[in-house]
């Protein structure tokens, strides 16, 4: 089966072959060793991985931008206004914003802990970008396909609160400190229901890799039907994990200015903003992958299209919830996480186990 990796491998093999031939053509004796080395397996693998990562990242980066654009336009229409107006249907607003944030001065507060302050933003952005690699677009289009991809993704995902906490702390600002604390408390409270729901999915499918999970759903049934409670729980927790209204407590701009990102400005802030949307994308992707059958769909278009369409639909629900609700309070989020979502996820797990034990699927 032709995957992104194999296509790019042959491409890089050909490229490196051309380079080796060029080196040979110069007939410089001392370069012949390099020509041989260029064509060896590790170099090919290295270049292929680089290309795969670059292409994958750029693709998903564009989808991240699409998410921002979609949120802006849909929120506009939900609120009886137009949304952005820059360029074709307002799509170039993202680029305008990107250029603007890039051109801004990078300011570090005098009293901040400089090293941690910088590190925190990179930790958040890097983990978000890493997460992209864990999630395949289709059986062909992916970066890595390890057996424990789901576990890896969740693990990387839960690294972000750490960065947020450090960022909030090192800014040396009371608002960002409170915001960081809230982020940590909230993400931990919602992490556990998410994991419980994931366990139920794993119980049903018996696989920890996304391709395996989706394959099981293709063979049997979309998990949204048997595990409906799990879907709802996961959806609510996913909104909380990606820090969107009504759970955007860490950056509640009414009381905490901008929460833990108060002191970040310029390109750092732009990247944090982007990473917010990347995390939202990842959450939508997980919902799609775990419950909505991933790239499962009629065969007349590519599997990737099915997958992305589902992801966008899930994100539409994210936006819809956002416009219809107000932000809730920290203690209420914790109550929701520990006292509502956790029991629900346990019920969901029991249902999964029961279904599996009864051998319905």
């Amino acid at each position, binding site marked *: 089966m032709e995957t992104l990796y194999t296509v790019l491998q042959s491409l890089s093999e050909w490229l490196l072959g051309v380079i080796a031939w060029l080196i040979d053509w110069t007939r410089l004796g001392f370069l012949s060793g390099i020509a041989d080395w260029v064509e060896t397996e590790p170099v090919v693998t290295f270049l292929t991985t680089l290309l795969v990562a670059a292409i994958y990242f750029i693709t998903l980066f564009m989808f991240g931008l699409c998410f921002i654009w979609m949120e802006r336009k849909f929120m506009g229409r939900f609120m009886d206004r137009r949304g952005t107006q820059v360029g074709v249907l307002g799509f170039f607003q993202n680029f305008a914003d990107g250029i603007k944030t890039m051109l801004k001065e990078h300011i570090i507060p005098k009293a901040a802990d400089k090293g941690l302050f910088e590190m925190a933003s990179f930790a958040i952005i890097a983990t978000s970008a890493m997460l992209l690699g864990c999630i395949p677009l289709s059986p062909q289009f992916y970066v890595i396909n390890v057996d424990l991809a789901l576990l890896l993704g969740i693990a990387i995902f839960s690294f972000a609160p750490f960065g947020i906490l450090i960022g909030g702390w090192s800014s040396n600002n*009371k608002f960002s400190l409170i915001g960081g604390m809230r982020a940590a408390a909230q993400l931990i409270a919602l992490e556990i229901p998410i994991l419980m729901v994931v366990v139920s999915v794993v119980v049903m499918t018996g696989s920890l890799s996304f391709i395996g999970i989706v394959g099981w759903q293709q063979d049997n049934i979309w998990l949204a039907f048997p595990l409906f409670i799990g879907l709802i729980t996961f959806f609510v927790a996913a909104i909380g994990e990606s820090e969107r209204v009504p759970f955007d407590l860490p950056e509640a701009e009414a009381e905490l*200015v901008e929460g833990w990102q108060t002191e970040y400005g310029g390109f750092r802030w732009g990247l944090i903003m982007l990473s917010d949307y990347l995390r939202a994308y990842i959450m939508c992707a997980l919902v799609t992958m775990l419950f909505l059958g991933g790239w499962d769909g009629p065969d007349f278009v590519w599997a990737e299209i099915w997958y992305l369409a589902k992801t966008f639909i899930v994100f539409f629900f994210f936006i819809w919830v956002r416009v219809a609700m107000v932000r809730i*309070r*920290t203690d209420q989020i914790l109550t929701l996480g520990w006292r509502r979502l956790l029991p629900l996820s346990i019920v969901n797990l029991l249902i999964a186990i029961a279904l599996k034990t009864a051998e319905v699927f």
Partner: protein
Amino acid sequence: MSEEMWINMGPQHPMTHGLWNLRVRVDGETMTAAEPIVGYLHRGWEKMVENRTYPQIIPLADRLCYGSSFTWSHLYCLAAERVFNIEVPERAQYIRTACIEMQRISSHLMWLAAVGTDLGSYTILLYGMRERELFLDLMVELCGARMTYNYVRIGGVRNDTPPDFERNVTRVLDTFEPRIRDLEALCDECETFRMRTIDIGKINAADAMNLGLTGPSMRASGIDLDLRRHDPYEIYDELDFDVCTHTDGDCYARYRVRMDEMRESVKIIRQCLEKMPKGPTRVKVPRCPPKGTAVARVEDPRGESLMYMVSDGTDKPYRLKVRSPNYVNLSASPAMLLGNKISDVPAIMGVLDMCIGETDR
């Protein structure tokens, strides 16, 4: 975070509508002390008007509050008419009453919009502003400006209503009445809004009365008192309306009182249009009033506003004192804030309907 810390919310802070400062001492996220600080927008209004002639003060009185400028210029004219000792033509009184109620609706809508942003829902902001636009358009048609009307004159109103004014008002009211339901669906019937407002910022009747709370904030604590009925001015004693009260004394109660007041205002405007007689709208006023003092108080959208005027027989007032309802409501805010979470600050202060223009004068 183990120690209590003081947080300055303001003068530049998203929660403060205007330029004021709220210092709160927080223990974790719970407030243990609060101190509002005002004076950043002090323009010396009371000194300024001592150097203006009587008609020149009307546009300045408009600018006391951007949200409800009509009530302030009307209050000024009411006080001045008592100093001048003149009667206002009946038609002018009806026009004034209708305009005051329209102003009350638009002020309440703007308040709702601000509460929406404070709580994190921009939908409420935009819906509120959209409804408010209906009334602003009416006012533009009537007096040529959207917010600072300069329409009331000592001894009447500036001009008569335009020819199809009554039809337009009726049409707007017919459009607006069902749309209150939309706003309520976004607020009342949304569980998160109730979570954020019910049992937040409680104040009981005795405290509310002692601390000088007036207007909707007081009525929400179970005190059935409205200056429109209690100390009627203009033609309120001929109209039939209810005083909206609520008994809980929390943010939700204050919110409910305001929403009900909008409905009552619609009723009042309809009655005014029905009963409006023909006749002159303005009387000619002498330049200099007789010596004396006068006091006028009206029910502003925010509470009891009062003007005390001392005239020394010249064409400029000797002393003009403004009692701003918000000034006192703000001084009572620590009683509501204490014991609540820091996330409740925007809810409590937003529901109080802050307007710094009139507070600092």
